[in-house]
């Protein structure tokens, strides 16, 4: 397990606990009480840290190297029922955007999401979760297939942005995202979107238009990453903490301005501290959201979705 700077008190206590347990095993000394005390302290420390997280610290948590990624969720939630599907039927299979069919209970869902890697090699393979136009076109193809057969769509968003590359521009990154957003506003099946890590800009919204849009507690969602915002407005990356605060990019802020509908609580200390728990929470949340949405006819579904997005924005009239 890796630790961020503000997680160090947790690391210290966990090390202590480990040592204490080793002593208990190796000698006759009764350590149960000491262990219990340390565990108590640990719980308090985790809570304290989580209570006072700054927006920038949440951004760091959302990028925690041990944080579960899209396929971790899908494999945990669907088990063997997941069938991954590839390709945009055009130029490429984008490894940064994954998708496929899977079951929660007896209901099929089309899962789509950006995928990050867990070490240098796989990070490169997944292009750091930054999709190319073919990734967005693959996502749209899968959504259209789901629509054809009446299967609800679940998107898991975790991207530092759509890939800003030469070939991405040549193949129409903007067009691909635009097309997705438009088609998603009128897709005839329910769309449940969850920001599980980073939700950066058009790259996130390209699979993020939905009937029910949710965010994990320690994820972020905004028009730009704090670093890039800092470099544009302050002309230096130094001010990313200020930028993170100014952008109001945390889950609670996004809920306040009604960009998302719901916040999904994470285990104490963040999703990476108890993966099984966050997997089951997300699985249950998806099933519950679908229960609510499946009662609506496609026409009602689409008109509610369109109204929701028409209402967004604040202005003086």
């Amino acid at each position, binding site marked *: 397990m890796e630790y961020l700077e503000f997680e160090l008190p947790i690391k210290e206590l966990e090390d202590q606990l480990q040592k204490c347990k080793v002593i208990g095993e190796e000698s006759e000394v009764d350590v149960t009480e000491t262990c219990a005390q340390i565990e108590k302290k640990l719980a308090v420390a985790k809570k304290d840290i989580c209570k006072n997280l700054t927006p920038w610290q949440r951004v760091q948590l959302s990028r925690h190297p041990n944080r579960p990624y899209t396929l971790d969720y899908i494999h945990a939630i669907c088990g063997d*029922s997941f*069938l*991954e*599907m*590839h*390709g*945009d*039927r*055009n*130029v*490429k*299979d*984008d490894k940064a955007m994954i998708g496929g*069919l*899977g*079951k929660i209970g*007896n*209901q*099929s869902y089309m899962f789509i999401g950006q995928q990050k890697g867990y070490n240098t090699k796989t990070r490169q393979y997944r292009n750091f979760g930054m999709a190319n136009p*073919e990734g967005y076109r*693959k996502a749209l193809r899968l959504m259209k*297939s789901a629509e*054809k*057969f*009446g*299967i609800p769509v679940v998107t898991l968003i975790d991207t530092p942005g759509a890939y800003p590359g030469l070939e991405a521009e040549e193949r129409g990154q903007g067009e691909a995202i635009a097309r997705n957003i438009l088609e998603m506003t009128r897709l005839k099946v329910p769309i449940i979107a969850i920001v599980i890590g980073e939700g950066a800009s058009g790259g996130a919204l390209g699979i993020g238009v939905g009937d029910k849009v949710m965010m994990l507690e320690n994820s972020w969602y905004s028009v730009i990453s704090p670093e890039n915002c800092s470099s544009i407005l302050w002309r230096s990356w130094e001010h990313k903490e200020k930028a993170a605060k100014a952008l109001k990019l945390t889950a609670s802020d996004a809920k306040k301005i009604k960009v998302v509908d719901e916040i999904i609580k994470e285990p104490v200390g963040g999703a990476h501290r108890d993966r099984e728990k966050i997997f089951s929470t997300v699985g249950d949340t998806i099933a519950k959201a679908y229960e609510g949405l499946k009662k609506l006819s496609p026409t009602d579904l689409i008109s509610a979705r369109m109204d929701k997005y028409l209402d967004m924005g604040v202005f003086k009239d």
Partner: protein
Amino acid sequence: MSWFKRTGKGIQTTTEEKKDTPRGLWYKSPTGKIVDTKELEQNFYVSPEDGYHVRIGSKEYFEILFDDNEFKELDKNLESKDPLKFEDTKKYPDRLKAAQEKTNLKDAVRTAVGKSKGKDLVVACMDFAFIGGSMGSVVGEKIARAADYSLKNNVPLMVISKSGGARMMEAALSLMQLAKTSVKLAQLADACIPYISLCTDPTTGGTTASFAMLGDINISEPGALIGFAGPRIVRDTTGKELPEGFQTSEFLLEHGFLDFITHRKELKNKVNQYIDLISNQPLRA
């Protein structure tokens, strides 16, 4: 003293007395691995040592896909005519007759309906052994009728492509089979009936420009050749050396045209898993 003593010098067995090994006892894969044909059959016609997927025909695919190899063949007796009085090194009717005699097939596709994991499935499977799996009027019509059966009975359709392309002996008529089959697939799509396209070695020419690439999912087997223009034509036209692995199923997966590649052993499972998922039915074990 030696154990055996050779009294006469040289080989003296007459040709008539020589014992021959029965034909077809062994199969040798392109990488030189040798396998007992019985074992090959039990291993879904995949060479166990190197995973080479041997080219097989409709008989074998039906056996793999249908429960207990039970199925009803559709339009069994459809046969080609010779509308253009075509003649190359041979007259077309003679070529047809020779192919029929050699392969014991009526034409390059067989269509059938049967249970796969307990549920109905329509399968149209091409036979490369019949004039290179070329697509003429019969292939087009049989695939169209198989799709029609799917449409009327609400049964998923699977087409197994294995073809060198359109049949030259039927010229423009065979070209129009691309359009005919596409019409039926469009109707099938409108009725929201799942269509699975399995591209096997080789899937080239007219088939890729029609039904082979139009599946709700397009899938393939490892190492299959799939492409529109064959590799030789591409090389001769462009004058460039082709990259390694050009037009293999792995190449197509990387370039976004296949949903996945499956080992033949997993074929029946994967196809039925997809059907259950996309039609929102409980998964069959």
